């Protein structure tokens, strides 16, 4: 048997073998002992530094404290956006044990008294949540409920209560488009920068408007809290806390009172009003209505509210002050007249207006069917006579007009702190050739002189035009009060020509012109301006023969735009204003461009009087924009067959959805600008000089003083 060898053992030999092997075993034991000692020395001495670090990173948990966002204040220091103390509870999906999920949500439901639909929302968000993004359970909590969750944290793995600040916009909808709103960072933003601050619960980034543009200065430096935690996440004690550095305050040129007044005064109209300082170009107000409440966006807007806003035909999600493009209508006439004066027009030269003018083989009508008779430049502006401009435009040509339009800011892009602006079109022969590959025709010039055809402006440009006409300086709009002097170069027109224009514009409002309704209800302050009506549909010969339909009988989308550019006081201009009401149609006197502009302007001269008139008016409209928005939402809920009582229906990611969709709703240049085909059949109606009110429209109460 080879395996066992040949040798057979005796007892003595066996004993000897035992002794030898026992020594071997003992040596092996001692060897292993030495090995263990060496191994321990290696881990604990040679690799001590590595393991000390690992042990510390186990023990110490670093929590970021989101920095308080900088305030946005108006020119007088009144906050337009500030922060409120906010207690909130989130769930970090990564740290939530799956098997415990139902128990934890059950306990939270009980502690926070969540409603069933809120619970559903949390569950739904958890299903689709990426692991690192906190899912909001509840925010805006009172201290008692926040504390109830905090003390039971050891039973609630993955639940993160936090005390932070939420963004608050005191003026609500009136500043929606101007200031924008904040929201949680989107997954893409986090993927891009990998900044842990972005996924810290409660941290918000600017999503729109000035909040977005000034996101970097407004975001401060985060604080940090080092805490000792157990393996199960229970905090044992605080080790060190570094406080956050709040973001910088951004001071705007906006006058908060005026901004809010402008938003409220526009009532139920859809449009924008921009007010500028005629000395500096400071934008005092830039209101686009209807609007959304930035507070509900910052809290995470409900899907329902979002749906309601995006379906509204008054497009509350678009900043019309910068992104709305409209044909300027007759508001361009002072500009056109100025260009003619600069090229040698005799202001006293008369044109006979018979109510229509044949250009080529088409007949162009004046807005006044019977005609104005013999008319000079001054009356041409004050009465907004189309024929006068048709005649003169053919003499001077489009290039003269286009050049002046650009000098006055039309078609210009301004360096302003907003993510997007639509800057419209100032057409001229070269432009038309390039864009449409067809030569410029005389009727194009004729259309352009009355602000129809290809010409498109936004309300901010309208205000710039008013300010430049008023001051003779190339003012540019400023939104930020940076303390610098913004001296503007003169636009290079003769002062006597400007004076002629100013006088004519004064008489538009104060001299029996088309804008009498815009007379300022303030003693001794005369406003100068120019009304406008921009047609959005073609008026056929057939309709003209039957009688043109009144705007009030037309569907909203087919009504004319109502416009006004103005400045006051007319002789020493301080403030300029551009107002465009889309599909305003001059149907209701108290919410026409003239009365709205006059009231907003009067706020700058007589605040109390202006406020008193507004409060009266708001009673008829159903309250402030906030109140009307709330009523609209309730009505929408009922229409959708949902309970009318507002219930928190917030989704953590709704705000970011909303941001994306709001951008999608923003048109490309020119897209949304309703523009009638440049047809010779067009008439150019003018301002709302005592419009005839059809019986169907709401009664206009004459709270606007008439003189």
């Amino acid at each position, binding site marked *: *048997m080879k*395996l*066992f*060898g040949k*040798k*057979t*053992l*005796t*007892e003595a*030999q*066996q*004993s000897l*073998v*035992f*002794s030898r*092997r*026992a020594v071997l*075993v*003992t040596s092996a*034991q*001692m060897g*292993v*002992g030495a090995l*263990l*000692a060496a*191994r*321990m*020395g290696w*881990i*604990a*001495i040679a*690799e*001590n530094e*590595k*393991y*000390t670090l*690992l*042990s510390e990173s*186990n*023990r110490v948990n670093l929590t970021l404290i989101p920095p308080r966002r900088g305030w946005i204040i108006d020119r007088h220091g009144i906050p337009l956006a500030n922060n409120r103390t906010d207690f909130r509870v989130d769930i970090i999906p990564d740290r939530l044990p799956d098997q415990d999920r139902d128990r934890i949500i059950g306990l939270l439901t009980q502690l926070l008294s969540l409603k069933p639909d809120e619970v559903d929302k949390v569950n739904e968000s958890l299903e689709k949540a990426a692991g690192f993004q906190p899912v909001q359970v509840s925010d805006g909590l009172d201290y008692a409920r926040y504390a109830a969750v905090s003390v039971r944290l050891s039973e609630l793995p993955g639940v993160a209560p936090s005390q932070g600040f939420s963004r608050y916009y005191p003026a609500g909808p009136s500043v929606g488009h101007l200031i924008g709103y904040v929201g949680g960072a989107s997954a893409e933003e986090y993927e891009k920068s990998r900044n842990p601050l972005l996924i810290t619960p409660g941290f918000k980034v600017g999503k729109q408007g000035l909040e977005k543009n000034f996101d970097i200065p407004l975001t401060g430096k985060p604080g940090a809290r080092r805490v*000792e*935690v*157990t*393996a*199960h996440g229970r905090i*044992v004690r605080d080790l060190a806390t570094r406080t956050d550095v709040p973001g910088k305050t951004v001071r705007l040129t906006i006058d908060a009172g005026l901004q809010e007044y402008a938003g409220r005064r526009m009532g139920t109209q859809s449009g924008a009003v921009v007010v500028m300082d005629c000395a500096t170009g400071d934008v005092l107000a830039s209101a686009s209505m209807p609007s959304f409440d930035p507070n509900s966006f910052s809290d995470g807007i409900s899907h329902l509210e979002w749906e309601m806003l995006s379906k509204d035909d008054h497009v509350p999600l678009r900043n019309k002050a910068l992104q709305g493009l409209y044909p300027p209508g007759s508001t361009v006439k002072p500009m056109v007249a100025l260009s003619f004066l600069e090229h040698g027009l005799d202001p006293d030269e008369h044109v006979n207006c018979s109510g229509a003018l044949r250009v080529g083989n088409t007949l162009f009508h004046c807005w006044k069917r019977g005609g104005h008779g013999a008319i000079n430049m001054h009356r041409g502006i004050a009465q907004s006579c189309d024929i006068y401009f048709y005649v003169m435009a053919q003499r001077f040509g489009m290039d003269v007009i286009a050049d002046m339009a650009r000098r006055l800011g039309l078609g210009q892009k301004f360096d302003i702190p907003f993510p997007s602006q639509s800057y419209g079109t100032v057409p001229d022969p070269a432009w038309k050739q390039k864009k449409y590959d067809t030569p410029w025709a005389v009727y194009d010039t004729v259309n352009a002189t009355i602000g129809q055809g290809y010409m498109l402006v936004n309300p901010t440009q309208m205000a710039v035009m008013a300010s430049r006409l008023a001051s003779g300086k190339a003012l540019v709009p400023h939104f930020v009060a940076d303390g610098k002097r913004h001296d503007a170069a003169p636009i290079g027109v003769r002062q006597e020509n400007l004076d002629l224009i100013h006088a004519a514009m004064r008489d538009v409002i104060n001299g029996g012109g088309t804008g009498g309704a815009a007379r300022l209800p303030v003693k001794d302050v005369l406003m100068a301006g120019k009304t406008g009506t921009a047609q959005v549909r073609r008026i056929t010969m057939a309709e003209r023969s039957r009688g043109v339909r009144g705007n009030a009988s037309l569907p909203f989308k087919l009504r004319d735009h109502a416009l006004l550019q103005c400045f006051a006081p007319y002789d020493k201009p301080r403030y300029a204003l551009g107002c465009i009401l889309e599909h305003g149609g001059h149907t209701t006197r108290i919410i026409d461009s003239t009365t709205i502009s006059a009231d907003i302007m009067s706020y700058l001269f007589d605040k109390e009087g202006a406020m008193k008139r507004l409060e009266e008016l708001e009673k008829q409209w159903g309250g402030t924009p906030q109140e009307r928005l709330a009523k609209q939402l309730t009505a929408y809920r009922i229409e959708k067959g949902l309970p009318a009582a507002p219930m928190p229906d917030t989704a953590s990611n709704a705000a970011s959805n909303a941001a994306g969709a709001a951008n999608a709703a923003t048109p490309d240049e020119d897209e949304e600008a309703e523009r009638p085909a440049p047809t010779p059949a067009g008439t150019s109606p003018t301002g709302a000089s005592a419009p005839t009110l059809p019986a169907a429209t709401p009664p206009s109460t004459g709270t606007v003083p008439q003189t």
Partner: protein
Amino acid sequence: MNMVPEPLRRLPWRVYGLLTMLAAFGWIVLYSAAGGHIMPWAGMQAGRFIVFLVMAEVIARIPLSLIERISLPVYGAILAALVLVELIGGVAGGSQRWINLGFMQLQPSEFMKLACVLAVARFYTLLPARQARTWTALWPAGALIGVPAFLIMLQPDLGTALMVTAGGITVMFLAGLPMRLFVGAASAMAAIVPIAFSMLHEYQQKRILIFMDPESDPLGAGYHISQSKIAIGSGGIFGKGFLNGTQSHLDYLPEGHTDFIFATMAEEWGVLGGLYLIICFMLLLRWGMRVAARANGKFSRMTAAGLTMTIFFYIAINMMMVMGLAPVVGIPLPFMSYGGSSMMTIMMCVGIIMNIDRESMRRSSTGWK
């Protein structure tokens, strides 16, 4: 001359002292692991130690011949109990290890570590030396080891199965079986390991794989080893200080009072504490091997050496495990880890070794008296 009465003086005080030095250090570590409380662990462990020390002393006084004679029947009874576990044993922690006797949970595999050594030693005592290098010397011992090891593997309890096998093979080795057999078996093992590995339970496979690379899954199956190494490594030479261990006190170290108590100790006492423990253990093992060396009779020698080896396996496997040199197999550290059954087994080993020591001393003393 001496005031201490003779029977008291004859007690093995040096062994008692050594055991107490180990156990007392265990109490200190358990006191810290419980967050600075005597209860529930340190106090219980101290009480058990005293009870089991008395038990060891009682075992030491049983006539060795009796132990020798009953070793095979006891082995048979424990083997029967193992079969019973397979049939009716309760499932605990995913493996079938316990028989519920109503008043206590019985874990027969624990006793098998001891019984296997005794049985194999008894077998070779009965076997004449001239047959030590024949088939007759091999297969019965192989069966004595293999059958219980197989049953324990079925439970499954890899660590205990390994210890039973290792204890039995040590005795075979000491019995004088040819060296080539062991060398050959070791080579064969190296070849079989991959096959055996594929037959293991998935969680056992995972443990072994994780042992190879614990950092590959620091939050999952490698968590134990990673955290244990962090605890030992961050302790440094002098440790973080008594009651100052963060890994254990903040619950990062799992099983910090049982299988991973060495890491709990090392974090607070550093390399110095580790060396103290290793030296104490080596002294204990040296005592066991010396008893084996000076014992008369085959059974005494093989039993003393085999049981010493069993204690050694406890120590070596546990410490290699916590230092990342062996997979996590669930073997406690003698005298340190909190728990009754392992302490009972080890104290039985110590008791039998003391018995053999006493026996050989008596014989030699009668020799020169």
